[in-house]
């Protein structure tokens, strides 16, 4: 019984006052006195400032080389790779594109995207339960594989995860979140940070709508509750329905 176990652990933890280091925020922890002889040293530093500093270096490098960078994020299985395959086939004529693909393991997505002719670099965070997101230093290293003078657009396909990637700036210009109609309509409410930090949402797999009970109005409303001004493109990576407006919007952003 997992719930009982959880309670038991908590109870045990409370009894073990010598290791009294658990979470009591809002219940007086902040007012506890310092231990005898302790000296408080103010730091006030962002835990992720190392990542943020590298992200800024990336951003400066991309600006210098005139490369527009898009970070695409979603939960697993929402169709990121299929969308990028089709997107590349639309824009490769006009925009010199490259892709960095993040996965915990395998190079399957990179193999699919390489068919487009774009240079593709696969980043595997770890073959056995590795990192759940791409971070700025990973991009900085991966970019060494490209000649940035020959690239106008760099697309980063992040790991399938709606939580952590939202927290890690990589120096990108644009963040796009993909949501598919086979997921819950309430995903934006469950992962608000992701829908706050992104500039647009792609609602994918709309070709499946006739076969589903999906309430797309509810999904759109939920996205707009979290981010009222977010553009939403309803698309199908299978039939390419809705791609014209998505590509047009993307091209506008690239050409600024």
């Amino acid at each position, binding site marked *: 019984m997992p719930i009982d176990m959880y309670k038991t652990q908590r109870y045990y933890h409370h009894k073990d006052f010598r290791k009294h*280091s658990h979470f009591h925020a809002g219940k007086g922890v*902040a007012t506890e006195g*310092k*231990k*005898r002889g302790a000296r408080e*040293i103010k730091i006030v530093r962002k835990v992720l400032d*190392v990542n943020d500093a590298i992200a800024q270096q990336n951003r400066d490098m991309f600006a210098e080389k005139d490369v527009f960078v898009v970070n695409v994020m979603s939960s697993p299985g929402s169709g990121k790779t299929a969308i990028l395959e089709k997107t590349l086939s639309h824009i490769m004529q006009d925009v010199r594109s490259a892709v960095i693909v993040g996965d915990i393991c395998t190079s399957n997505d990179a193999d699919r995207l390489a068919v487009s002719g774009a240079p593709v670099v696969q980043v595997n965070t770890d073959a056995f339960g590795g*990192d759940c997101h791409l971070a700025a230093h990973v991009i900085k290293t991966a970019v060494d594989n490209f000649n940035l003078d020959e690239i106008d657009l760099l697309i980063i396909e992040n790991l399938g995860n709606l*939580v952590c990637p939202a927290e890690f700036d990589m120096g990108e210009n644009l963040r796009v979140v993909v949501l598919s109609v086979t997921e819950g309509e309430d995903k934006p409410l469950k992962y608000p940070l992701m829908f706050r930090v992104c500039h647009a949402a792609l609602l994918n797999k709309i070709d499946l709508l006739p076969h589903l009970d999906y309430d797309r109005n509810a999904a759109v409303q939920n996205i707009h*509750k979290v981010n009222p001004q977010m553009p939403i493109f309803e698309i199908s990576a299978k039939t390419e329905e809705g791609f014209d407006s998505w590509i047009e919007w993307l091209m506008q952003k690239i050409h600024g």
Partner: protein
Amino acid sequence: MHEMGIAMQIVEIAIASIPGDLENARIDRVNLKVGKLAAVVPESLHFCFQIAVQDTPLHHADLHIEEIPVVARCADCHVQWTVREPVFKCGQCSSGSVEIISGRELDIISIEVVDEDTTDAD
């Protein structure tokens, strides 16, 4: 999901912040602010912290997390409110132009250091 990496980063920052004049310093407490919108689960961070501090000057340290509520401000009418549901629309003028004032923190505020050479053992 990335709490272990964050715990290791906290340990690194804390050790780097020990003043140079303390030769045998022990960190007793790390005070952290975590916004409700930050992608961090306090319980997971505590668990990872206990592992990350092993064999470091923080091995007895407590991690104190102050959770920071999400506060938003309307860019149009400038009203400010605490966000309890994930809805970022101004309740006063219905504007969708809303900025987040707080709630994304993941900041080390301070550490509490004991110099074991100058302090009587408990």
